[in-house]
């Protein structure tokens, strides 16, 4: 019915093996630790809680909506140049953060108790 060359057989085997491994790995990653409860995600660190601009790492800042790696790095560079943020509003001085973006972030950021 099928006359396959050696190369064709190798290609088919390669595709089938990769598909099998891919599906298996993907399935294993999905197995939940805690089922059917909001609690299962409490172990996660990324939250909507406020981020202290003076202590935030690059990863923390990237976790904020609308902030990519480049902008996060610019915020850290700015913080290093001034020492620390005195107020959240000061974030607007960073290039790339306008009033609109700042308003969206206002509820998500603070400068901590000892700026």
């Amino acid at each position, binding site marked *: *019915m*099928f*006359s*396959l060359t*050696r190369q*064709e*057989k190798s290609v*088919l*085997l390669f595709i*089938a*093996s990769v*598909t*099998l491994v891919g*599906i*298996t790995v*993907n*399935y294993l*990653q*999905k*197995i*939940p*630790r805690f*089922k*059917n*409860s*909001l609690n*299962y*995600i*409490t172990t*996660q660190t*990324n*939250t*909507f*809680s406020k981020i202290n601009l003076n202590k935030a790492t690059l990863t923390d800042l990237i976790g904020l*909506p*609308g902030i990519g790696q480049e902008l996060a790095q610019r915020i850290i560079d700015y913080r290093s140049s001034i020492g620390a943020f005195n107020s959240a509003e000061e974030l607007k001085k960073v290039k790339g953060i306008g009033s*609109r*973006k700042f308003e*969206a972030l206002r509820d998500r950021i603070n400068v901590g108790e000892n700026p």
Partner: protein
Amino acid sequence: MSNLEQIPVLTATAVFFISGILMMSFINIPFFVLLAFCLIMLTLTFSKRKKNFVFVLSLLFLCLGLGGLHLKNHLRPPRNHIALLDLQKAGNIQLGGIIDSDPTYGKRKINFVFKDKKIMSNGKSYDAQGKALVNIYSMGRFYYGDELILEGSLYRPFNFGNETNFSYRDYLQKQGISYILNVKKGNKIVFLADNGANPFKSLAFKLKHSFEDILKHKLWPVNSAVLSAIILGERQNFPEDIRRAFIQTGTAHIIAISGFNVGIVVFIFLIFLKAIGIKRKARYLVTIPILVIHMLAVGASASVVRATVMALIVLIAYLIEREPHIINSLSLAALIILAYNPLQIFDIGFQLSFISVLGIVILSPKILSLSRAFLCGLIPRMKGRKLKSSKVMLNSFAVSLAAWLATFGLVACYFRIISPVTILANLIIVPLVSLSIILGFILGLSAIACPQLAPPIAATTNFVLLFLFQAAFSLSRLPFAYFYF
């Protein structure tokens, strides 16, 4: 079709993969049992590479197992999927994410698919995955790719009673949507950014909106609603009486964008590119991205993806000067769609689309030769030029009859209607719709390039569409045109 007798390996693979999906939807075999079966088959294929028969047989059984594994994997949501949330404990919820579809604006609400990234409930927030259908009951302008935080009540879609076969929950589940978020007046909507869009999809939606605006401004309201549905897949304003006439005459396939529409798009662009003097291979190269943008713009339903993949394969085959194999390209299209979402196998659009193409490919050459023999027997002198002139008519008849024969069982089962008038209706309505689509595209181009030409083209389009509606109404009123049961 010379090599149709030989079953290509791709087709056999697709058949076994599909069988695996279907088998797994009826029999519940644990994932790891199926995985063990696949590993045995894989070992067998590796060890028996020199024995052709054993190799092929174990490879096909491996594909069967892979189909089942793929469905099992697809049905299990990721660890932080919103489908796993226990809503009994959740009050008002805030969802953070990106608009993943082109928003539609109804009379009372705006709705779109929302790709979730964060969820906040009872003062806690978490990373989340999954999609929700969002209904916003207030004014506003939203665009595909907008990043938002939305506040509202989240609930599971309804499952309707046993008296109807339709389950809204299953319908949304097939699209990966597990919840509906209702954002009422006064609920918080925070705009975060507008950079979450796929640039191709974004461009496709922009072009669609521009085209839709042209149709709205240049044509009568009913005509613009119908042409928007046929060309752009925007069916929310489609007039109910015209829809009913198309269903009764068995020509509703023209409303759902399918191979027919994609074929016309390819035809129009190839002719246009030829007219402006572009060489043959360059024409095919230019048409390929146009087809992808068209697919994204009209919503990438199963029938559009099927038609686009097949058209792309044919174009690429011509580019590299190979003979396209229709059944193989159909199999590849099925594998691509099912790899993305195996639940599409249960979608009526998927089933009708693939079965009608199979019907046309397998049955229409036989019908054509039978009709020719019948015609030659009826009119012995009808040879040469006369026979050639009737070829177009015979071809259309054969395609319509083949598609009807292949699909009428499914149509009767799903819609409880049989339309004997279908073959005649297709012979009349399909050319009219083709003409309307071509005029619609010319109208769009002329409105941009030469606005002075647009009014006469719009008038012609209005007239053709009016004629089309009258034809559909008249055909549906013929005696024994259709039966509901």
